[in-house]
């Protein structure tokens, strides 16, 4: 159910990026898609009532030194969080570039409407 909602958010972003005529709205659509994917990644690692994946002294088996299976089964998966962190940084970079392109295009054409920005054809 949650995954379906997340996918719906993704599709809303895609719809917005494809159909909107305003450049800034296209950028917003792309950002919504990125957030949907980030949300999806976070949900992959989510566990109801999960604990933070930080190993304390109590989580180790006192005899063997191995991590207890109750910790492994109870903790949230930390890998997707690392992925999301990386992907947020990447999307920040591309967002900054996209917005600055929008500003420069506005300076040249005096409009945000992509139907009017059509010097390239063919």
């Amino acid at each position: 159910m949650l995954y379906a909602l997340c996918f719906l958010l993704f599709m809303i972003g895609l719809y917005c990026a494809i159909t909107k005529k305003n450049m800034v709205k296209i950028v917003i659509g792309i950002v919504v898609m990125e957030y949907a994917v980030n949300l999806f990644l976070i949900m992959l690692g989510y566990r109801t009532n999960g604990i933070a994946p930080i190993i304390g002294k109590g989580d180790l088996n006192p005899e063997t030194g191995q991590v207890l299976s109750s910790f492994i089964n109870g903790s949230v998966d930390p890998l997707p969080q690392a992925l999301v962190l990386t992907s947020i940084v990447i999307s920040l970079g591309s967002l900054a570039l996209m917005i600055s392109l929008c500003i420069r295009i506005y300076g040249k054409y005096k409009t945000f409407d992509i139907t009017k920005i059509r010097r390239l054809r063919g």
Partner: protein
Amino acid sequence: MSIPLPVFVAVPLVTAFLLPIFGKRGKRIATLLANLATASLLGLAIAVIGKSGVYDIGNWSIPLGINLVLDGLSSLMLVVISTVGTAAMLFSARYMEQYTAKAKYLSLFLLMITGMNGVVLSGDIFNLFVFLEIASIASYALVGFGCGAEELEASFKYMVLGSIASIFILFAVGLVYGNTGSLNMAYISKAIQASGLNLGLTFALSFFIGGFSLKAALVPFHAWLPDAHPSAPAPISAMLSGILIETLGIYALARILFNVFGISLHTGWILVILGLASMVAGAFLAIGQWDFKRLLAYSSISQVGYVVLGIGLGGLILAKGGNPTWASLALLGGLFHLANHSISKSLLFLTSGSVEMSTGTRDMKKMGGLAAKLPFTRATCTVASASVAGVPPFSGFWSKLILVIAAVQAHFIWVAVVIVFVSLCTLIMYLKVQRHVFLGELPDPLRQIREHRGAMVVAMVSLACLCILMCLLVIIPSLRSSILDPAVKALVDGLEYSTKVIGTQ
């Protein structure tokens, strides 16, 4: 652990961040350093030919850490990337004097090479995504580097479609992680072999195909390429058309389809159809163009179609259980055409840059009779055109011949017919270039122009020599068995990739 693979990523990355320090004053030093970086990468890439190895970053063994994998296919791509990169960088040394902020340009250029080398070497699917984004974002910025109205427009269009493709790929990476519990390609491949494709993985596969086809500008997804590639400065067009779409699109697609998911009948057919559609549509659209660089950009779509067709045909024969000899022949044709196309198309874009720099226009209707004025440009352009069109002594002929033989032997006669037909269309469009740019009457406004010599000519002539000599790669058996055969074998072996990577630690 014998080969220090991170060097391929570290050298351009470190140089890229060093260059902006020099700023305006030290433009010469910056240019020299950037050229040294690309040339040393070329040397390194040639040094690792024929070797293979796995490198665990930070000594964390997989699946815990990230690994870099060098096999035949990666090493072929490394050589091609650094060859084109070196030539384009040499060409930029003179060409980019027209623009301001040369140091920034050079560092973006090197970042693009960093990203491509990373994509080629990465053995981790998320790491591949990160490097892909490094290369893509650098290329978005480089397309709009001129900051003219048209360049910005093309850059925005490219960026929107490129970002959507990247998000598709990230989504697919998430789906794969959710379904297999690993991000390492070898472990994913193992998990898929154990459990088979479920719904989520099939979904991920379709997102991968969509995303990478957008990056490779295969025909239903090609809308951004004819705008983006002509708008960039000429050496960047050469990099984008020559190698970026092939690394980010085709290499990644082939790696995921053959080595991670395993090629099946469906994916083989999808590749063949995408390839054929790109070949035919690209060639038809190119013939009608009057903008020199836009014609070349459409022709890139068409030539990339050949590569995808070769790879798809090989996969299809493998999936059908047909004769592996013909499958590897088709793959050989595809990969050899990839190398040929990189060299000859980047050369064509460099010559277009030389023409544009001398005449100040890209409109072929305003040109003519430049053969006497630009002798080197003319000669190299003719060589490259002949190579792309597949005229016999040049290297492009051999790759197309191999593709035709493979298609006929595998009983895809109609595919062979299409290959020959598209070659004919390609010949027509390059005859048009020759006719309108270099032959005919010299228009009055162009009487005073002269050719820019120096580094630009060196870059063009060395690529032209490669266009002629590349055929030795398939004709001489020892060269073939050291460069192309391992690349083909990496794809033919398919899912054995995982045992190779996990086993060689």
